[in-house]
């Protein structure tokens, strides 16, 4: 297995870089835009909230692969444009991530018992300090584990990009396997890579979940 990785290190490295670039794009845009939409949803429940939840509901009913293929083939054919598959994959998975993150953020904010904020108010805390010292830390502790788990899932979903010819790590592994035909070694190496990246993230999510699960049940 090591020999194959060393022999085809440039191919694996290239695939790894594309996967990381794709993941970083999806993670950063998803967290920033999803976080913003989640906050706006709780502020304007009837306008932005309803629209966002409706869109999330529709997207949740479409398999990611179908969504990706639809954006890659029919939409581009209808529009008469050809877009680099990397950007199509990034756009598709970012949309999925944005609504996933928005849902987590909205849920985290609305699930925080309002009495904690009321208590801060009657103690004379100013709104900015309430946000910074009470609301934000409590909401973040509540949602960070779910956000981490979601980002790990998004990393897994980047493999779909290989199906529209993005040269990410899975596609590179397939191409190497086509040359050497050693599927056990090649896909074991791929599995090891994902374990090395995903297990620490999942472990961190589990640790934070346990660490931050302080009693907030005093509703």
């Amino acid at each position: 297995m090591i020999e194959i990785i060393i022999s085809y290190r440039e191919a694996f490295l290239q695939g790894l870089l594309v996967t990381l670039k794709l993941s970083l794009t999806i993670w950063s845009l998803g967290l920033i835009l999803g976080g913003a939409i989640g906050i706006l949803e709780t502020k304007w429940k009837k306008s932005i909230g309803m629209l966002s939840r409706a869109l999330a509901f529709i997207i949740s009913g479409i398999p990611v692969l179908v969504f990706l293929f639809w954006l890659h083939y029919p939409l581009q054919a209808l529009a008469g444009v050809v877009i680099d598959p990397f950007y199509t994959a990034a756009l598709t998975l970012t949309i999925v991530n944005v609504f996933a993150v928005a849902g987590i953020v909205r849920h985290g904010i609305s699930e925080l018992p309002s009495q904690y904020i009321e208590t801060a108010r009657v103690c004379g805390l100013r709104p900015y300090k309430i946000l910074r010292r009470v609301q934000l830390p409590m909401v973040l502790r509540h949602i960070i584990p779910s956000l981490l788990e979601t980002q790990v899932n998004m990393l897994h979903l980047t493999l779909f990009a290989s199906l529209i010819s993005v040269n990410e790590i899975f596609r590179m592994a397939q191409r190497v396997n086509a040359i050497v035909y050693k599927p056990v070694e090649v896909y074991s190496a791929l599995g090891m890579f994902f374990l090395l990246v995903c297990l620490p993230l999942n472990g961190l999510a589990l640790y934070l979940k346990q660490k931050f699960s302080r009693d907030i049940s005093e509703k």
Partner: protein
Amino acid sequence: MLYGENIYKAFGQKAILANVNITVEKGEAVVLTGPSGGGKTTLLRCLSLLEAPDSGSVEVDGSFYKFSQGIGARTDFPYPYLTIVFQQLFLWPHLTNRDNILLSLQNFGEREQEYLNHLINHFEMKDFIDNYPNQSSLGQKQRVALTRALILDPKYILLDEATSALDDDRAGRVVEELIALKKKGMGILLITHSLDLAKQVGDRFYKLEKSSLREIFRI
């Protein structure tokens, strides 16, 4: 003077508070009793301006708060001049007991340090002051929540079953402190089911029953 005038509050068709009038003078303790679910906590929430009655007004030392414009219409709520300790306490779970107490203080000067030391000794909190709320018993949390309110030097304090989990000895210490604060001019409104506690600290006694408030006893 804290004065709730003609406070009317209904949930659906059912009136919880039917034109209730109540006053709390500085330097006196008013005890509120009545059956569970009778609206005592709702009255406290209306008096502390956290909940808007359907009609009526609240006066705090000459400042009037009317509710026809909704609870969010005014931002000059007199916190922590008037403060409240909720029955469920709502200690912020991500902060230690000590930080819960200190967070709301604008200044932590000599007076606050001295008073905090006094309360830590008097309420016997030394052993758990640096624990997190979820590492503390209900009785311990009650003492922390009381301290969090008292250290703010409020002129009016509303206590909702604030000693229900304390043993006689520790409840007695709370009573001693409340009597001392009353003598210094603090107005106290106390919901309790403990007649012993009520008799020791109270000056006037009200019963809230069938949405009406009546004075039942005066010392």
